[in-house]
């Protein structure tokens, strides 16, 4: 292992330890909620970026997150399943539905793909609004049960009844870290190399023997599964699901987080989500300013850092070196 790899991995380990110690330092329950929600948003933004690695922007992604939430909530509420069964089933169901949705969408590319996926997202949202049974109409679902208590022999039971308990924070943190690990490994694998080729040129990719359509489908289904995981965690965390939460606006927010952070880099959406999440919290007293500030950050990033905030160190370092060299000359 070379030096830069060593620095990278020790840095990641340090960050992970800090994340696990967060509940010890942060006593304010409100901030625990903010962080927990942010981890869910990171899963969604990172899986959105996973779709972007093929060069397509899907606006069906956030509705698919909602699909995961509804599926998991209904499996628990109507069929009495345990959370630990309902969640994986919801992920599986959403993955299957995403096959049906992306099958027609994949006949198109670029702007057309964007609109096709947007349309399917709206269809899903309208289904939740129109079919009062079982989705609860525009009022949505309330009183969604929390995950069941885990009993590990010899340890006190881990229960998720109260949000103030750090257990919910840890539950979502663990799922976020696992999701990021899996998506990172997938991107570094051969599948990631194929996605990069498809993004560059679908035509050339097909002429080196890549079945473009199949690989895109595999990637979209994996990404949708992670969106569903995020949705399921979200549903049981907030205990309320309302169709309007998954409207196109949230899709645009997720896209903005990923793009501002930088879709070219794995860490981009994480940086974007954290920065926008914190910005929103600090602007809590002035909610009317939030869209304005978001827009300014987006415009400034696209103008000055087209590769996203993640490329900021690369841009600043040569400039800083120049300044240092000049100071030394004097």
């Amino acid at each position, binding site marked *: 292992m070379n030096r830069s790899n060593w620095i990278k991995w020790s840095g990641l380990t340090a960050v992970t330890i800090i994340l696990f110690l967060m509940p010890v330092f942060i006593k304010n329950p409100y901030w625990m909620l903010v962080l927990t929600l942010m981890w869910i948003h990171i899963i969604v933004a990172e899986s959105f970026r996973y779709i972007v690695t093929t060069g397509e922007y899907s606006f069906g992604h956030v509705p698919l997150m909602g699909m995961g939430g509804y599926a998991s909530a209904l499996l628990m509420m109507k069929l009495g399943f345990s959370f630990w069964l309902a969640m994986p089933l919801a992920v599986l169901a959403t993955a299957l539905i995403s096959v049906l949705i992306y099958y027609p969408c994949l006949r198109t590319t670029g702007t057309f793909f964007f609109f096709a996926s947007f349309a399917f997202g709206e269809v899903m949202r309208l289904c939740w609004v129109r079919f009062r049974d079982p989705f609860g109409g525009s009022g949505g679902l309330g009183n969604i049960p929390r995950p069941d208590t885990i009993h590990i022999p010899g340890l006190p039971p881990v229960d998720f009844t109260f949000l103030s308990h750090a257990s919910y924070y840890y539950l979502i943190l663990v799922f976020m870290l696992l999701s990021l690990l899996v998506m990172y490994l997938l991107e570094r694998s051969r599948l990631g190399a194929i996605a990069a080729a498809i993004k560059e040129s679908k035509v050339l990719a*097909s002429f*080196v023997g890549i079945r473009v359509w199949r690989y895109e489908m595999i990637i979209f289904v994996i990404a949708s599964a992670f969106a569903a995981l995020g949705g399921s965690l979200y549903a049981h965390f907030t205990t309320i699901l309302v169709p309007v939460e998954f409207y196109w606006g949230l899709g645009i927010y997720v896209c903005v987080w990923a793009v501002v952070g930088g879709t070219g880099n794995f860490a981009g959406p994480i940086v974007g989500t954290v920065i926008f999440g914190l910005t929103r919290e600090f602007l809590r007293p002035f909610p009317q300013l939030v869209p304005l500030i978001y827009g300014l950050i987006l415009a400034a990033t696209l103008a000055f850092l087209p590769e996203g905030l993640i490329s900021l160190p690369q841009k600043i370092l040569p400039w800083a070196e120049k300044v240092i060299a000049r100071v030394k000359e004097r």
Partner: protein
Amino acid sequence: MNESLLEVRNITKRFGGLTAVSQLSFDIYQGEILGLIGPNGAGKTTLFNVITGFYPPTEGKVLYKGENVTGLKPHELVQKGIARSFQLTALFDSLSVFQNAAMSRHLHTEVSFWGSLFHTLGNREKETAAEAKTMELLKLTGLDNQRDVLAKNLSHGYQKTLNFTIAIGTDPELLMLDEPLCALNPERIAAIQDLIFTVRDKGVTILVIEHNMKALFPVCDRIMVLDAGMKIAEGTPKEIGGNPEVIRAYLGGAIDVSDRR
């Protein structure tokens, strides 16, 4: 004459009212280099696109080794051994030369999904073998000393060479080149001509579309001339160079066909 590798039978391609290729039949024989010339709009590229599965023909069929391959998708044709290069250079722009060439080995890289996910030991061996193969390929086309340059930063001449490299990286039996020699300086032309001979000597059959007659004639065993979607002549470069109908329709004057070999 050798056996036919590709048989094109009565291919017609219409776009609305426009007939781009009409009732065209020809054979490509094992091991030869066949040139395809014709004025702009003669249907050369359309013919390429029909053979390589880009669009289905309106009528007619294409047989490869006696098997009907009409309307197969590009990735299926590559599996059977038909590769092509592109007129307007198509590359994986933001990937390095090495990554471009490595991607062309897609069908010949046996990396298991789980192996590449967890970087297993067995997988690392396979990857090293694949890398060696890719380097061999780059050495053959003379791009080995630019392996880490991004494709989009290469000069035009080397981009064409890389396009060529990707096509032969798929280990084709039939290589179809769309204008590999146009808009190049004499040095790159000579390099690509040599490359065409090298690839042929490895047993690959080649079909070339080209506008640059001077560069094309010395390379080909046989030349076919298209005009308005129809075949107007077929023969050795010498015969074509002296064919009065071809000269009138297209060449506009006698040309020098001195043999480079």
